[in-house]
């Protein structure tokens, strides 16, 4: 990770190869699932998989940006649940309140991300600890507010956001695609995107060419938290009820998805498309365990094995390249 300029320059051949590799893995999983249970390919099940993947996918996009600048955000899941509780605090019944709720949720999340980013850059706290502490604080605030049992209600429109569809496509999937498109454009086509890769690849040389790596890093944390907030609202719409643990385990799932998708934890290397494929692979794996009738706990075992294997695969690939 140190003076390896290779992590900064685009490597079209390797990127394509890597993406291709993920496609093959995903495709073979889908084939395996279809052989095991032909109804896997039923439009209904595909829809379920995608609807389930969308909120997690939003989170993974943010997590990827933070990992790209050599960070890590463990507070995302706790933030999702906190935002969900915050949304019920309005006790709104009219759908007209939905934009207001979104605005407040995103503003709140952005402040959380700003604090994370400031701790990491200005106080030089390790991202792991800063976001871990944030996770604990949010959890405490949430439980203190709800006294353990969330009350309050959400406008009916949330259910539509989480499970409804437009032109046959799930609403939350469309929202995900929109976010994906915007972020991909910024990351891969604009100078800001290059700044993110440079900051993650080598912050010192980034500074030398005039990139404020602190500002870039803070921006990534703010985007990540904001996406967690948005994802939280969509997830509440999908789940249908608010409890204190909405999105529990997603902080790890989002990291796992990014790593499976080839995003390097050391920063500066990885793509949003790869991370999204990682999300799909993870969700399809979960779906397969359910189709096979395994107890839900088996997912934990499979997830653990997969993440170590995937990370080992990419660690080997990186070794060969350098």
């Amino acid at each position, binding site marked *: 990770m140190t003076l390896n300029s290779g992590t900064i320059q685009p490597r079209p051949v390797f990127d394509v190869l890597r993406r291709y590799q993920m496609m093959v893995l995903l495709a073979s999983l889908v084939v395996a699932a279809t052989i095991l249970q032909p109804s896997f390919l039923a439009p209904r099940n595909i829809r379920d998989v995608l609807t389930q993947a969308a909120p997690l996918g939003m989170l993974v996009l943010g997590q990827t940006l933070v990992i790209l600048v050599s960070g*890590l955000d463990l507070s995302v899941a706790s933030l999702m649940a906190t935002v969900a509780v915050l949304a019920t605090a309005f006790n709104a019944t009219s759908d007209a309140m939905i934009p207001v709720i979104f605005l407040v949720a995103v503003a709140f999340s952005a402040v959380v991300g700003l604090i994370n980013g400031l*701790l990491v850059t200005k*106080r*030089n*706290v*390790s*991202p*792991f*600890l*800063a976001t*871990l*502490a*944030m*996770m*604990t*604080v949010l*959890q*405490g*605030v949430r*439980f*203190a507010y709800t*006294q*353990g049992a969330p009350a309050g209600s959400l406008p009916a429109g949330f259910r539509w956001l989480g499970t409804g569809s437009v032109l046959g496509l799930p609403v939350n999937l469309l929202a995900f695609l929109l976010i994906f498109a915007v972020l991909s454009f910024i990351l891969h086509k604009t100078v800001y995107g290059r700044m993110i890769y440079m900051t993650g690849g080598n912050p010192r040389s980034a500074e030398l060419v005039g990139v404020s790596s602190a500002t870039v890093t803070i921006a990534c944390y703010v985007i990540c938290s904001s996406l967690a907030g948005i994802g939280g609202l969509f997830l509440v719409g999908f789940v249908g009820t608010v409890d204190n643990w909405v999105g529990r385990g997603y902080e*790890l799932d989002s*990291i*796992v998805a990014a*790593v499976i998708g080839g995003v390097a*934890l*050391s920063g500066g290397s990885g793509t949003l498309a790869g991370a999204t494929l990682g999300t799909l692979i993870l969700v399809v794996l979960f779906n397969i365990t359910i189709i096979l009738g395994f*107890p839900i*706990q*088996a*997912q*934990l*075992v*499979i*997830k*653990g*094995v997969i*993440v*170590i294997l995937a*990370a*080992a695969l990419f*660690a*080997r690939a990186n*070794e060969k390249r350098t």
Partner: protein
Amino acid sequence: MRTAGPRRFRISEPAILVLAGIIVAMIVFGALASDRFASVKNATNVLEQAAPLGFAALGQMLVVVSGGIDLSIGAIVAVSSVLLAGTVNGSGTLMMPMLVAVLSLGAAIGALNGVITLRTGVHPLIVTLGMSSILNGLVLLYTLQPVGKAPVWFEEFAFGRILGMPMAGVVMLGASALVALFLRYHPSGRSIYALGGNREAARLSGIPIDRTTILAYAASGFLAALAGAYFVSRTGVGDPRVGDMMTLASITPVVVGGAVLGGGRGRVLGTLLGVLMVSLLNNLLNYLSVSTFYQWVIQGLIIIAAVAIFVDRSKRL
């Protein structure tokens, strides 16, 4: 020499002084706020309840000093407590053999963490996280409810007294002393600091990187299993959820005590004071009837304050 480690007894380390100050302040505050707080009985309680966190944090510290991190501690606590209580199931004769078996299993799982990290070159964060997921899955496949039963005499580990001191607390202090002596005087202990300080330099100076890494993770697994055994002793059953909070809880005392994520620095005394501070804080907040929820907020803020203000921040993870 940043990576010098505890060559001499340097009490002047800022993290340790700050911790000692906070602890004294909490005791004074507690004594003023409640007349039952500053009693021998309560001190005994604090020491007793600090034991499992002490075991876990001690192991976490060894791994952190070596330059890694162990996120599978909570899962190992759960595996060992469920397995111990489940297999013993009240039998007095099985208790000791199974205790040995479970502690060995903990060490073996830890060693496996080390081996995977070394062989694959994957970040320990991911390796131990994956391991944690696998172990938690296996535990929950085995049981969703608390299982098994420990023989009554095994309660001595948690509730017994030696010279008026709680047995578990004494074991924890004894283990800490052993680890401290090991780190300071044993070549392998010195190697852990060297490895965490500068891995490449350590390798070039002929330090056995593989053996040292595996040793640190195995010790962490062993101590986590010991914490699992303590919970069996205290509750009499093996609870699959008992380790849920332990992984993250084990990191707080380590970093508050002055160890640096990234390796090379950290002392047993600092970690021990960190454990004491967290336990005392929980105890004090209970005396003041502060709800668990606010306790979480306060704990999070303390981590932030401790690492943002006092700790050497030259290295990161």
